[in-house]
């Protein structure tokens, strides 16, 4: 479906200046997006490497590949790297940074220099985390529960905490930039109701980033202070309350999972609309559901604490609110499905990823209902059931959306087409590998296999072997795009301004775009997702602008 562009190369944001300084001191949101792309891909494979070691250890019931302490560091690092250095930035920092100004019709984000600062903060935090990993690492679990992290662990808790603290400000500044851009920098005629739903999703995400991240920041400050000075804020021996840490931690970390999934939902919305050639069914409901998820997401944190020692009444409140937050997600799934009705569906790789997302997010979301259910959660809390649930959402949901988005917007970002055949194969491999890895873990969880165990009773082995087999396949599926995207930068066919004939302002400029995005400021006079106009059979061929 993607069209080629045989015209000679023009000046664009990529070829304008090749010097290192022009990249490291850039304020162009598109270049910053690519800087982020490189960095998060790096951390993704680091986190993935830790996952590989975990799954290799779990092939056998005995702890025989690594020592107990090493294993504890592996799952901690896997979690911290994947959550804070891959998932949280991923779509917003790469696709969001690249596309938000283009989609609203602006020349750049509201604060380009702050955008660059946010990348440097991410890099500094990442460097601190790498240093921590290489010089002893942390073994507290990514959740840092006290008093283990403050008074018992012998590892580099302070350094890891500070690394995440720094990286958190990267997230806050990105969110701040997006909100101001979306409010103040929309092109003439771009009303709120004409915004792509990708923008609505990032707006909702940004609200969570700015309001939630500071809380984990201050929590980490308290943990670091307590550990360094032996304060008593979380230590019961000194009068402190370990549950206070859990409340403060989850107050951010639950909304954080919505930071991870909302952008992916925005991506999927764009893909489904484009590849079924239809306006999204129920535009306003989808837009408002993103905001609803962001708001309700702040009210459910203690559903991670049902057996932690909170009162029965608190548990009841948080359980019922957790069901409330599930409703808008369900609404989205129904709207995406309804969009396909009477559509004209194409099966390019982005759409395959979107379908994969639909299936896997549905399953992951439904298993969330199990966890919100108090009676069941008592049994499955802190078991592999939870691990399976959040990987279905974060990998089956967020990462599939990320990959789908990378494929969809790759022509715009790089000016090249990726090889479609390989992309479809990779999508299939990822889907199969993912399910084989994580579905057995639901069963393991209900059987009672606890989290963070490197040795386990022998009757759990068969399911663990299946899971490891799946992980290997999944790893291959992730390596393929890395290879063919790199390949396409040199050897891929050049892309036209709008190879998918998609709706959205980003497609009305060249691929890759010029540094200031549009040759002339756009004036929007049409509704979003105007596929009826784009696909009108009598339309004349019009050459790409500029």
């Amino acid at each position: 479906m993607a069209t080629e562009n045989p015209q000679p190369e023009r000046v664009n944001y990529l070829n304008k200046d090749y010097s290192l300084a022009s990249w490291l001191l850039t304020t162009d949101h598109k270049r910053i997006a690519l800087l982020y792309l490189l960095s998060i891909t790096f951390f993704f494979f680091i986190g993935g490497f830790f996952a590989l070691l975990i799954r290799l250890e779990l092939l056998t019931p005995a702890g025989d590949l690594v020592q107990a302490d090493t294993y504890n560091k592996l799952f901690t690092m896997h979690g911290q790297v994947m959550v804070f250095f891959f998932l949280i930035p991923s779509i917003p920092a790469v696709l969001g940074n690249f596309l938000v100004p283009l989609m609203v019709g602006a020349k750049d984000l509201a604060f380009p220099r702050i955008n660059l600062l946010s990348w440097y903060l991410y890099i500094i935090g990442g460097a601190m985390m790498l240093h921590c990993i290489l010089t002893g690492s942390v073994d507290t679990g990514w959740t840092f529960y006290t008093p283990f992290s403050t008074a018992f662990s012998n590892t580099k808790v302070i350094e890891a905490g500070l690394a995440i603290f720094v990286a958190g400000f990267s997230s806050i500044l990105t969110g701040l930039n997006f909100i101001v851009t979306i409010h103040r920098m929309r092109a003439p005629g771009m009303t709120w109701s004409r915004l792509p739903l990708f923008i609505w999703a990032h707006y909702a995400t940004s609200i969570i980033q700015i309001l939630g991240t500071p809380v984990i920041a201050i929590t980490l400050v308290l943990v670091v202070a307590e550990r360094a000075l032996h304060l008593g804020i979380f230590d019961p021996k000194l009068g402190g309350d370990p549950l206070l840490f859990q409340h403060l931690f989850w107050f951010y970390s639950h909304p954080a999972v919505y930071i991870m999934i909302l952008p992916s939902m925005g991506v999927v919305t764009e893909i489904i609309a484009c590849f079924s050639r239809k306006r999204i069914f129920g535009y306003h409901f989808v837009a408002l559901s993103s905001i609803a998820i962001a708001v309700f997401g702040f009210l459910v944190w203690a559903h991670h604490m049902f057996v932690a020692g909170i009162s029965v009444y608190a548990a009841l409140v948080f359980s019922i609110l957790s069901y409330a937050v599930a409703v808008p997600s369900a609404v989205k799934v129904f709207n995406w499905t309804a969009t396909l009705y009477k559509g004209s569906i194409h099966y390019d790789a982005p759409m395959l990823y979107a379908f994969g997302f639909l299936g896997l997010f549905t399953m992951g979301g439904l298993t969330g209902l199990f966890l919100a259910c108090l009676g069941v959660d008592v049994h499955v809390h802190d078991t592999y059931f939870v691990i399976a649930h959040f990987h279905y959402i974060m990998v089956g949901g967020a990462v599939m959306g990320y990959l789908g988005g990378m494929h969809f917007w790759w022509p715009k970002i790089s000016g090249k087409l990726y090889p479609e055949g390989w992309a479809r194969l990779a999508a299939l491999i990822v889907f199969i590998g993912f399910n084989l890895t994580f579905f057995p873990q639901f069963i393991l969880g209900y059987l009672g296999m606890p989290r963070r165990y490197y040795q386990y009773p022998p009757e759990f082995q068969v399911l663990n072997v299946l899971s490891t087999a799946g992980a290997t396949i999944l790893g291959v599926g992730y390596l393929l795009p890395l290879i063919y995207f790199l390949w396409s930068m040199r050897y891929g066919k050049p892309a036209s301004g709008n190879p998918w004939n998609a709706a959205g302002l980003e497609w009305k400029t060249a691929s890759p775009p010029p540094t200031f995005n549009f040759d002339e400021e756009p004036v929007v006079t049409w509704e979003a997702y105007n596929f009826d106009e784009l696909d009108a059979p009598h339309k004349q061929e019009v050459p790409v602008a500029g």
Partner: protein
Amino acid sequence: MPDSQTVDSQALAVPNEIHNPALLHHFATEQQQRDSASLGMWIFLSTEVMFFGGLFCAYLIYRLKYFAEFSAASKTLALSLGATNTAVLICSSLTVVLAVYASQHGKRSMLLINLVLTLILGLTFLGIKAVEYNEKFEKHHVPGPSFQFDHVQVAGHPGQYADPRHAQIFFALYFIMTGLHALHMIVGVGIFLWLLHAAWKGRFTPDYNTPVEIGGLYWHFVDIVWIYLFPLLYLIDRHPS
């Protein structure tokens, strides 16, 4: 698939205007730039509210739990110094308002004077804080290995005795909360030094005074945090004698 339509080049919404050097290239108009900066600062301040909010939450919980110790520990704080600092900051907010007004009306000397006054008041605050911290250090009230707090009867509460461990929690929160606040004050002083330099260079005009406005917003926020900190930390259980 045919390519999409191009943008109608005749429908430019904004006529070309004479470029103010302060207008950054990615903004279409100065108004847009001003509004963006203002909204950006307000959002940043909301993140600061959440940042301090975690500490206020911890404070609330422990004050309810260990009221006697919080009362006793609070009484060891120098009320007169804290009150003076409160007055200093309130005055500094006045000078900030005057500075913003001056920049809006192109009154250069008024602007410079008020920026300098704000700086003096800010540094006064920090100086008084340093005196207070020093006193706390001497009394071994700094949490950590050398912390000492006597298991004394809590004044005003017959029969209630302070557990040093719980008093240490008060001081931990005291130092972290006021320390974080002081850090923000130092950043504020830095911002106002820069504003002073730019004002001296004549960069602010009635058409372009956004940095003064948003710097002022930041200063007001830091002031308001102190307005909350002072009663919560210093005035827990004070009664006229």
